[in-house]
């Protein structure tokens, strides 16, 4: 880079005024694909599950604190909102779990060909939906 102004994307137009230099569109124009979409969702579900881990800590802390505290925590989970949040975490967990296995397979060297990538991608989506629904059916039957 010859000129530091390149880094800040600023320059002068023909009238001499300082302007923000135009950048090429990327996210606005690039077609979302199986590869990029599943990848960003792995990151999104990962961060979201991090929030879930914090809530898990608090839930366990309530259980350790007192019967009243835990009853309160369980009461929060038992609401419509609680159930929606719990379902969200279920889907995030099974997505991250399935796609995580796909990542581990890549680390071992398997599945890099384009058709394979698409096949395993569809498998991840199917596993996520299937496992989420299955576990929730079991949960609703038991509880």
């Amino acid at each position, binding site marked *: 880079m010859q000129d530091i102004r390149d880094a800040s994307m600023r320059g002068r137009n023909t009238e001499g005024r300082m302007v923000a230099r135009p950048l090429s569109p990327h996210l606005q124009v690039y077609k979302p694909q199986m590869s990029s979409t599943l990848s960003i969702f792995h990151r999104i579900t990962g961060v979201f599950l*991090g929030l879930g*881990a914090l809530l898990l800590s608090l839930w*366990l802390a309530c*259980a350790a604190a007192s019967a009243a505290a835990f009853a309160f925590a369980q009461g929060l989970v038992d609401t419509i909102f609680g159930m929606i949040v719990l379902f969200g975490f279920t889907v995030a*967990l099974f997505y991250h779990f399935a796609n995580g296995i796909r990542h*581990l397979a890549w680390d071992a060297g398997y599945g890099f060909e384009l058709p394979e990538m698409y096949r395993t991608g569809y498998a991840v989506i199917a596993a996520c939906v299937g496992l989420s629904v299955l*576990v929730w059916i079991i*949960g609703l039957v038991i*509880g």
Partner: protein
Amino acid sequence: MSGTKNPGMMRTFLGRARGSGSARAGLDHWRAQRLTAIALLPLTIYFVISVLVLLGADQATMIAYMHKPWNAVLFLSLIASLFYHLHLGLQVVIEDYVQDSVRRVGTLLAMRGLVILFGVLAGYAVLKLAI
């Protein structure tokens, strides 16, 4: 690759790979992320089953559950692997999105503090229930 300069030299693959790349670091992070991920495969299955078993539980049920040594040990293993994996994952996310170097260091430290705090809280809660 330094390991191939002297083919007769005995080196492990890890020994050869360490220190490669422009940053000269990061292999240990990569490896730890994969190892915690592998540990979390069976532990997650155990966790999902535990949640189903503990649906609608009261505190007495939780205490009885954690008093069983396997449950306490597996939960503690889960918590350790989970929070370490979480830390590694959030680290790369912050490194990607926070450009200012001062802000990045601060954010990383704050994240690490929170993750450790909540990890210790979870571990403490399980021990309190179990003992």
